[in-house]
């Protein structure tokens, strides 16, 4: 009985909103064994963190979410590193399209990069954890299903290069640009020339030094330092007021680790340059304090979090 009560109080007091400290005091005062049972459980709980595999969690999508009918719809939560289910889904989609013999898929594992040179002189640098579809019969077509790629496009006024990302289309106008696709959000940064976002709909022109994000919150256009675009190719990541959530995904993709962030940490923002390092221990030793965060090993991955709250 003490064990059950202690478990209940452990769960309650671990809740960030817990406020019934007087009730907790009253329970503790009943029997000194209560405090002992609680302490033992809290210590066990602290050790659980190491044991929990860093798997992505999937959450049921809201009912109004558009998706294939008669299929159980799951929306990946803000877990970084790519889930088996999400990967399987991407695989299934690619397979369907791949039946058309002219489409082929370029994939990279997290931490792995690849450069694709197209016959027309266009170069695509593919970052880790990426799925990109190209068309042998149409050199001006690319579809970024997930991950990140930098496009250095040979411009042709009569036959512009188009990148499909989700429902959006980016059309080049003589250009170097970088696109990140993660879940249902898309980020593009332009370092040279110009890109047109959705030419047949909104037709937003993005000249060099402009960036666009598209997610559930809508479309936002902002400034970006041209040298920050696709900086991962030079072994560093450059940010101006970027969400830690997005940065975490870039890190996971670039150095090939599973990485998640607590909601509090994910919502924080960072401005600066982070040097990439393949050794995660060394990398986080430098990068986590720089971002004002703590990185802890968690299961077979890493977790970014804020300070532990009230310091004792």
């Amino acid at each position, binding site marked *: 009985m003490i064990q059950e009560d202690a*478990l*209940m109080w*452990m*769960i309650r*007091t*671990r*809740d*960030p*909103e*817990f*406020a019934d*400290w*007087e009730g*907790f*005091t009253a329970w*503790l*005062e009943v029997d*000194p064994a209560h*405090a*002992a049972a*609680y*302490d033992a*459980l*809290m*210590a*066990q*709980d*602290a*050790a*659980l*963190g*190491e*044991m*929990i*595999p860093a*798997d992505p*969690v*999937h*959450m*049921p999508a809201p009912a109004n979410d558009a998706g294939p009918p008669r299929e159980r719809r799951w929306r990946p939560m803000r877990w970084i590193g790519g889930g088996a289910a999400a990967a399987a889904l991407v695989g299934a989609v690619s397979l369907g399209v791949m039946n058309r013999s002219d489409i082929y898929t370029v994939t990279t594992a997290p931490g792995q990069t690849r450069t694709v040179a197209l016959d027309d002189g266009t170069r695509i640098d593919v970052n880790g954890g990426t799925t990109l579809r190209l068309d042998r019969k149409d050199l001006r077509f690319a579809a970024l299903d997930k991950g990140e790629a930098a496009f250095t496009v040979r411009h042709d006024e009569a036959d512009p290069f188009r990148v499909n990302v989700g429902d959006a289309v980016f059309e080049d106008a003589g250009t170097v640009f970088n696109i990140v696709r993660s879940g249902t959000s898309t980020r593009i940064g332009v370092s040279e020339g110009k890109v047109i976002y959705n030419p047949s709909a909104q037709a937003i022109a993005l000249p060099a030094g402009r960036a666009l994000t598209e997610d559930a919150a809508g479309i936002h256009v902002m400034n970006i330092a041209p040298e920050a675009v696709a900086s991962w190719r030079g072994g560093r990541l450059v940010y101006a007021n970027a969400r830690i959530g997005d940065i975490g995904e870039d890190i996971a993709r670039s150095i090939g680790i599973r990485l*998640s962030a*607590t*909601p*509090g940490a994910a919502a924080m923002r960072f401005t600066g340059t982070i040097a990439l390092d393949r050794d995660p*221990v060394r990398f986080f030793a430098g990068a986590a304090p720089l971002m004002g965060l703590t990185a*802890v*090993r*968690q*299961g*077979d991955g890493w*977790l970014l*979090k804020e300070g532990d*709250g*009230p*310091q*004792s």
Partner: protein
Amino acid sequence: MDMADGLSAIFLQNRPALLRFLRGRGAGEDAEDMLQDMWMKLEAKDLGPVADPLPYLYRMANNLMLDRYRSAIRRERREQGWAESAGGVMADPAGDIAVDERMILTQRLEEARAVLRGLGPRAELVFRRFRIEGVGQRQIAQELGVSLTTVEKDLQKAYRAMLALKQRLDTE
């Protein structure tokens, strides 16, 4: 009014309740000294705005007791020469892990994964949101559109299963 002053004032108002709490937590004769330590820390630290000062102070006191328990266990282990033993409450997440240890770790993670899967998707999700991401039960209940009681029950179920697994692995 300065925020730190605010916390200090609340501390003084609730000193007797905090003392009772520390004694209930098993601080015994040290309860007064611990309160004094808390006071010094509150005075020394430039704390930012605190939304709920009283729960904050209680949590600070509770953390002090948890630290105390941890150091007591660590000392006990050291005295018994267990300091180097792997696993257990105080195992540090070492940067470099030997290969065979890594294999055991991987195996354990697999077992933990299986236990979590066995809870069913909702309980697993609830547990991860709560235990790893530190999200409160009220918010989790809202996200999933279930009652607070359901979330609480899921958490108890998940904790029981994970603690049982931990106990089994520790004695293996």
